[in-house]
Structure formats: C-alpha cells, structure tokens
C-alpha cells in the first residue's frame, strides 16, 4: 500500500531550484536509501517530505495532501531526524527520548505508562538503555547519534525520515543502526534515510533514490541503481564492485575528471 507519494515536488530557494520535479510512490515495509552527492538536494527533499518547508507539487500521506493533515496527526505519522540535530539543554537520554512522545499527548495530558514503555523500547532499539540517565553533553559522538535516533524512534510513526543517521558512527554502530532501520521497515514502517555510504545503502536498503542536481536520477532496487554509469553520472567517480556472502557491494574507487 502506498504510504507516501510525491508528485512534481519542487523546492526553490529564491529562484534556484534545490529540488525539482521529484516523483515517487513508496510503500510500507520499505527502507529507502536516499543517496547522491553533496548539494544534490537530499536534505531539502526530506524536509519537504516532512512538510517543514514550502514546496510546489504534491506530497501525499495515505492519499491525503500533507497541508490538509492536522499538525498533530502529521507529527504522529511522520517522524523526522535532522542532520546534526542540536540539543540545546543538557537533557538526559531518557528525557530526550521522551520528547518523541510529545505528538501523542493531548494538551494538559501527562505522559503515562504506555509512553514510558515506548520510550524504553525506543532506547533499547537504539541501544542507549545503559545511557538513559546520562546527559547528552557527556556522550561521545556515536552515543549521541544513537540517542537522537531513539528520540525519533519513540514517535513510532509510520514514516520515519532520517537525515544521515550513521554519519558520525564507527562501523559497528553503523551496522547496528542500519539493522534497526531495516527492522523498523520490516515491522511495517516506511523509512527514508539519507546515506553517503554506498556499501551500507546497497547492503541494507530495499530501494534507492539516487539524486543529482535536485532531481531523481534513478529510483529502483540497489543493484539497478548502483550501476557504473549511474554512479559515475551522479558522483563523478568510477566504481568497483564485489560480492560477499552472496551480496553485491559497490565501492567508489577513482575520481573522474569533470571534462
């Protein structure tokens, strides 16, 4: 079933189009990797999908335009984790994760045991349970990234938009977070994750969107998207391919001169 669809989505900053004419339909149970070079418009597209910036074209959640959905309902259904998410006060990891339950609380309603369970579950998914009482300013970069992901997981939204969730992590935690995102998708969510690591993207994602210059250059299964020609066209690099455990992987290998 289609959860999220984009039709002719275009975002302009002044006259410059950061995202232009993006079309897709994405279904539940899918982990989508949004890849592409710096400045391709990945972050802008994700923000448009979360209704955080004005865009032309139509984004629909369950067939309903985002603008027509009540703010709180939208917040319950679409969670967003910003790239380099700031945390302005030294909150504990548990307090931070609990903020993810805000969309589910009616005004004046206090947060209940149900919420507490969900907070614990989100912390355990992101493996930050041991850090629950530590404040965010005392964490390492990797611990911090996982705590922030826990906050986004705690929303338990049907659509999870995450911007570079593994950028600051070591290989162990990169694999761990990708597993979490994949499981989130397989349990019925739609996850769209901005990624730079082609190996992780190919290994874990069900589907890839390759962006260049604001448009979708290619959209499909990882092995269809990460061809030599596509990688070269998008990133200006020649790639090498290999196989391990029956899975194909792609390595960016050599720069190609612009001319």
């Amino acid at each position, binding site marked *: 079933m289609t959860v999220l669809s984009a039709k002719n989505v275009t975002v302009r900053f002044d006259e410059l189009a950061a995202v232009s004419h993006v079309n897709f339909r994405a279904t539940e149970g899918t982990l989508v990797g949004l890849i592409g070079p710096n400045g391709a418009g990945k972050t802008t597209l994700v*923000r448009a999908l*979360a*209704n*955080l910036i004005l865009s032309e074209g139509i984004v629909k959640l369950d067939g309903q335009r985002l603008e027509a959905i009540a*703010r*709180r309902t*939208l*917040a*319950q259904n*679409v*969670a*967003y*984790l*910003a790239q380099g*998410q*700031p*945390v*302005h*006060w*030294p*909150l*504990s990891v*548990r*307090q931070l994760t609990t*903020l*993810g339950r*805000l*969309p589910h*609380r009616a005004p004046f309603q206090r947060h209940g045991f149900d919420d507490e369970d969900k907070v614990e579950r989100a912390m355990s998914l992101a493996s930050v349970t041991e850090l629950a*009482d*530590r*404040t965010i*300013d*005392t964490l390492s970069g990797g611990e911090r990234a996982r705590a922030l992901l826990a*906050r986004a997981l705690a*929303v338990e939204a049907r659509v999870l938009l995450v911007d570079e969730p593994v950028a600051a992590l070591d290989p162990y935690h990169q694999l761990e977070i990708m597993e979490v995102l994949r499981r989130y998708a397989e349990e019925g969510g739609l996850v769209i994750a901005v990624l730079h690591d082609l190996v992780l993207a190919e290994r874990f994602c069900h589907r890839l969107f390759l962006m260049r210059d604001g448009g979708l250059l290619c959209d499909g299964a990882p092995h269809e998207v990460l061809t030599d020609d596509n990688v070269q066209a998008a990133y200006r690099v020649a790639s090498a391919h290999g196989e391990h455990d029956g899975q194909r992987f792609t390595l960016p290998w050599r720069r190609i001169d612009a001319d």
Partner: protein
Amino acid sequence: MTNAGPSRPWLVYAGLIASVIGLFTLSLMIGRGGVWLPASENVGADVADIILFEVRLPRALLGLIGGAVLGACGAALQGLLRNPLAEPGLVGASSGAALGAVVVFYFGLFGGQMAVPMGGLVGALVALGLLYGLAGRRPDVMTLILAGVAINAFAGALTSLALNLAPSPFAALEIVFWMLGSLADRSMDHVWVAAPFAAIGLLLVLSTGRALDALSLGQDTAKSLGFSPGWATLRVILGTGLAVGALVSVAGMIGFIGLVVPHLMRPLVGYHPSRLLLPSMLAGAAVMLAADVVVRLPMQGPELKLGVVTALIGAPFFLMLILRSRRAAA
C-alpha cells in the same frame, strides 16, 4: 554529570509555595527600619489598618506579581531563545516602558499619579509593535533578538536625551530615581494597572511549556513534533512584553531576577524548559518579596531602591553560578 532532574518535584513546589506565603506575610508585617507593625503600640487600630492595607498590601502584591512575571518570563525566554543569558529586558518592552514613563515625567504630564504608569504602558506597547514590525511577518529568533537589542539601544538613547535636556536637575533626579526601580509608595491603583497585563502575559507564557521542550531540539524538529515555532515565539514575546512592560510601568527597572532565577531552579527541577516555568514563577515572586523586605530594613538615610539591591545581589551571584558551572564542565 548524571543529574537528570528531581526525584521529588513536589518537595520543590512545597518549599517554593511556603517561601512565597511566608515572605508575602513578612512583607505585610515589616516596615521601614524593620519595624514590626502589629507589635508597635504607638498607633491606633485604624492607622494600623491604613498602613497595612493602603501602604504595605499594594507593595506586597506588586512584589508578588512582579517577581512571578520576571521569573516566569525569564525562564520562558531562555527556553525560547535556547540561551541561558536571555532575560525579560531583551524584548525591548521594558526599555520602551521606561521611556514612556520618562516622557511623562519630562513633559510634566502629571495627570494624577497614574500618568506615569499609563505612559509606561503605552511605551511598552509601542516597543512591542516596533519589535514585530522590525522582525517581519515570520520572525526567527535571531531577528527578534537583534530587533530587541536595537529597540533597547534606541529607547535608552532617547531616555538619556530626556535626562540631557531635563529642564531642572530635580526633574533629572526624579527620572533617575524612578528608573532605579522601587515598590515603595505604590497604591492599589498601581496593582490594578499591572495585574491584568501580568495575568494575560503569564497565561501566554505558561501555555508554551511543551512547545519550548520541543524547541530544545531546534525549529525543524519542534515542527516535526507538531508544534508551531512561530506561534510559540509570538506567545512568549507578546506575553513577556505585556507583563514586563506593565511591571516596569508601575515599578521601574528591576533587573537580574528574570536572568538569575531560572539558573537557581535548574539544579532543582532539571533542564526541561516546561518544568522550569512554574518553579521560576514562584521563585521569582519569593526573591522579589525578599529583596523588597531587605530594602526597607535600614533605619536611616534614603530608602534603598529595589532595582539597586537586586542588581547588587544578582550580579555577583550570577558570576558565581557561571564560575561554578564552568568548573563543573571542566
């Protein structure tokens, strides 16, 4: 640091409420030079009643309202701007109110004792209108701060100009003394001028708790959690402007309470902006009432001005807080 907030917030609330009630009562009981009203046998019951209800009650009420306003607005602004240095004067309404009052002094528009507060209110509202005019239709936090700084500077310059051109040294002195901030010699009329604005302002500010919590993750994330940063900003700025503008109109400039009180409360209730609002309101009231008792203790000389005392105590205290938190961070 593993401080994740209080295990017993009700204890903090109980302590704060008890302090406010105690200090309010003390404010009613203690007079100039520490004279204990009920024990003084030189005055008759009717005089005692007049002192209690017409001199001390308005003063205590203004201390209660004013301190609550400064504490709550300081905490809300620090949450909104995500900056522990924010204080209620930042939005420009208090310097606008001061200028409005000074204009009344300067032009000698003494239409009764309420002319100065009315001038202050007009000044505060003009400053607020100017703030939103300057910041545009979709104001972001940085633009608002800069506009507030500009308004403060301009209102300050105009106030200085009034002093510079003051027709007599007495007029200048009167202006300066008024600006130092005081709750002495205020009547119930002053309370009635300030109270409605303070109430509206406090309601606006206290309604933003959850939005402020969400904003501690930045504007985008707050929006994705279902809050409108613009609406929260409007409520905090408008609420602070109305409440603090009205307070300055009746009491002059009283600094440092709005800045320091949230810092006092954080170790007790944690860093959540929403959990800080009510305790800061109560603690602000307690601190203001206490400071207003302190100013009337000296028997001789002119009465100390409340704004002078809050700054005298507040500034070193604030420095100590900063040094301590830096040492903890190191």
